[in-house]
């Protein structure tokens, strides 16, 4: 008799255990869905572009340090105010460098500047492909290419 009761109790506990597993799984699914929705909104708000430049160091504060610049497919960098990215720094040439998105990668090319363009600390002498996370330096302004 007690054996029967025990068996029934075990069955109930067992079903409860498996049900609990699925409750946990449903909670996971709920969290995942909520997260995907919020991620979509964040993406719509600020990540629609093909890349951004994060300004790490900028002695003259133009562009201001610790800001990000949304990038179009073609970006000219220089001290001339008509450049897409206007940089106020004595060591930057009027038309300093060109940052372009071609196909699926970013490229940077020096436009014959006096002090050169540096990628990850190396001066470039031809168009160079950039990966996200690479550091770009024009004059004394240090920037990082981000997604």
């Amino acid at each position, binding site marked *: 008799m007690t*054996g029967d009761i*025990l068996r029934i*109790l*075990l*069955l109930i*506990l*067992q*079903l*409860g*255990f*498996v049900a*609990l*597993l*699925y*409750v*946990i*799984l449903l*909670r*996971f*699914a709920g*969290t*995942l869905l909520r*997260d995907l929705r*919020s*991620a979509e909104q*964040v993406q719509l*708000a*600020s*990540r629609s572009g093909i890349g951004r430049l*994060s300004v790490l160091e900028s002695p003259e504060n133009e562009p201001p340090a610790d800001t*990000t610049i949304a990038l179009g497919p073609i970006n000219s960098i220089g001290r001339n105010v008509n450049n897409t990215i206007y940089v106020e720094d004595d060591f930057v040439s009027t038309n300093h460098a060109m940052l372009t998105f071609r*196909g*699926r*990668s970013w490229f940077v090319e020096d436009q014959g500047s006096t002090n050169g363009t540096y990628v990850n600390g190396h001066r470039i002498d031809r168009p160079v*492909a*950039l*990966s*996200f*996370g690479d550091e770009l330096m024009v004059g004394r302004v240090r920037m990082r290419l*981000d*997604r």
Partner: protein
Amino acid sequence: MRITWRGAELRLLLPILAAVPLGFAITNIALTNTLDPGPLQLAIGFVALFGAAHVALVFFGHRGDQLILPAAGAMGGLGLIMLNRLPQDLAGTSAFGIQLGMAETQLLWFAVGLVIMVGVAVGLRDDGVLRHYKYSWAAIGIGLLAATLLLGYEVNGARLWIDLGPVSVQPGEPLKIVLVIFIAAYLAETRTLLTSASVRIGPVHIPPLPYFLPMLVLFGAVMLIVVRLNDLGTALLFFGTFLTMLFVATGRRSYVLIGLLLFIAGAFVAYRLFGHVQDRVDVWWDPFADPLGRGFQPVRALYALGRGGLFGEGLGQGLVTLGTGLTIPYVHTDFIFTAIAEELGLLGAFALLGFAVVFVFRGLRIAALARDDFGALLAVGLTASLGLQTLIIIGGNTKLIPLTGITLPFVSYGGSSVVASFAMIGLLLSISHRSATGSDTGQTSS
């Protein structure tokens, strides 16, 4: 270092921390036939460990992913319930005069793994150490392999173990991590070259060999040694992980196609050359040809799956031991999935797979949100490695593919595997922490 509440993680962990002691209690009631929840130290230990890991992440202000740890906890919990149910003398340690059973030893490894996980997640603020010393990491990997080849000893025809005093280590597990770090760093650096400079023959892109060479040489060497060690599961795992990372880095389907063709060719050659490969494939094709010899293990596993059915036999009520021996040899490592499916049925097995899917999904999401290419590729590699490992061993358990002896991450008994898997979570957490804090998008991963 500011405290950051991790609400989603806590909400997911709480029911898991309730379910695991319930599982222990059911097992004990079924095994003893009395209304007794059994000894409590395992349940307390499990709850305390994962609770402590959560509190530590909150305390250190970690803002990384909140679903990965609960998903791993759920898998680890199911594994621990099953290990506690199996005969405790299958494995264990007896160091410093203390005798520990199999489940207690596994819990000890959880503790070590969680400490390393929190350490990596919190301590690794900058991935430069991983990225810039990629050839050092590769050298460490080669060293690990050489050590296995020279000092290792064989278990079941595969030489995978190194004896280090009180514990034996499987160098293949840390090697997995080191290899993923190297490939991620290499591909992040050469990604653009690999896509832009390929030679095209008709519709097929041929990869530019000079840029590929260092990676191919290293990877080829690793594969050769792994195959030489008879560790076929690991070889398959490495290859799958490598192809996944290559595809993600370059976006070229043809590279994957070439890789798959190479794999088929390699598998065919291996089948012809090595007796043990032939054995595995023959047994997989028809285990009933020799049900008491070579097919013993898979036949018994298939019957166990059949006994489990949809709802399972019930925790503690499966046919784990038969006479003096185990029903399925190596049920605590290679066939833990079968044991879970026998006692919890198809429903329980699907729940386990569901947790693995959540894990992989979140891993790929971490990769998609990563701030730089290296982080993204590293996350993809770690996720692919854990996901493929799950796929390969469960496929082997269910006779979908030939069985290769690798562990089911977080679930199987085994210190090296558990610690390595938790270290990989630590890396994933640190990547997602950086993308949550470093960017100004206001991305909160909750």
